[in-house]
């Protein structure tokens, strides 16, 4: 067992975890944050994507103990004051989902790629989505949603400057 202290969606959290606890099981089982999904559980599908210190990673492929001292953001941490995050809003607007299972992972990846300035074209977005699988094969609208959110982020950045 290890005692870990980390920030989850802005709140400081301390917990005892078995060393072999995967981060995704800790988030879902011990923190009741079930928005982070488990798909294949083999680091292929991206359903479990979260941000660790601002970077998108697959939470099925790291132990909770590795996140000790880090700041973790899950899909539940994106909305602010009851308002959806602009990327969530863009997924809604562009119907970037069908069954919705891959959606939290897709959005966490999208937020990361937009923050890195990597969502520069539809081709680039598709390339960046390499680690996220949508079994409804609804990629077309997912790409449209990310493209729109990236353009909006670019516009608000330009307005701020």
């Amino acid at each position, binding site marked *: 067992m*290890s005692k870990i202290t980390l920030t989850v969606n802005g709140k400081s959290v301390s917990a005892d975890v*078995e*060393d*072999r606890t*995967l981060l995704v099981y800790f988030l879902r089982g011990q923190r009741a944050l079930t928005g982070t999904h488990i798909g294949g*559980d*083999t*680091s292929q599908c*991206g359903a479990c*994507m979260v941000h660790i210190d601002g*970077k*998108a*990673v*697959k939470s*099925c*492929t*790291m*132990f909770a*103990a*590795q996140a*000790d001292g880090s700041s973790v953001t899950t899909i539940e941490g994106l909305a602010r004051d009851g308002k959806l995050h602009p990327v969530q809003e863009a997924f809604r607007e562009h119907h970037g989902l069908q069954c919705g299972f891959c959606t939290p992972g897709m959005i966490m*990846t999208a937020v*990361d*790629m937009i923050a890195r300035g*990597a969502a520069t074209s539809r081709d680039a977005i598709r390339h*960046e989505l*390499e*680690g*996220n699988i949508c079994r409804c094969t609804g990629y077309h609208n997912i790409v449209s949603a990310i493209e729109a959110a990236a353009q909006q982020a670019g516009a608000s950045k330009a307005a701020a400057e």
Partner: protein
Amino acid sequence: MIPYAFNYRRAQSIAEAQSLLKGDAKLLAGGQTLVSAMKLRLAAPSDLIDISRLKELTFIRREGDALVIGAGTTHHEVATSATVEAAIPALKVMAEMIGDPAVRHKGTLGGSIANNDPAADYPAALVALGATVKTTAREIAAEDFFTGMFSTALDENEIVIHVSFPVPERAAYAKFRNPASRFALTGVFVSKTKSGPRVAVIGAGSNVFRVPAMEQALATNFTADAIKGITIDAGDLNSDIHASAEYRAHLVGVMAQRAVSSAS
């Protein structure tokens, strides 16, 4: 999936990692290979020594004619480093092609070469660039380091500290991806160095290998045309559901030509 139980330890220094690394303990870097192997219960270390936060292992430096990269440096850091791009642009391009963004955020140079997956990209770069691997015990030339499928010259308790890549005149990497796994079905790294050209192939055989016939042809004429007619013997190559040995042999030729014509 739940792995066998183990003890997690976070090392505060290379020296501490070294002292903890005994018996069935294993180093943990990005975990992008090891965690999956543990979940499948293919690996059952007694202790995991996490070295991923060691600043001593995370750096990218230009040292004279060499680019030196710490073992703990992630693929993302290599892919976005201005120092790497200025010294060996082909290495940046190669790092960008590894897996997906999440894998690149965690996976490291040290973990990749210590694992020596026959389809991993880094072994091709190390061999084609004539790199040297520095460990806690010694310096090992890339060609002596990769000894076979998933095996290396590393001793049980030896830790990779950094890799030193001599800066070539030109180099390039061409990779034919397996669209499902993102690993290379076949990848070819070529370089033009002071001591002559080098061609290193991964994904096609059980271990990284050089192609002397292509290197000889490129020594007099570093163009794609110079290696056009050179065929690779399919006899020793991998054959699986993704590609036959003959197809891989063909891909070596095509990828080598693409790499040579894009070398910069």
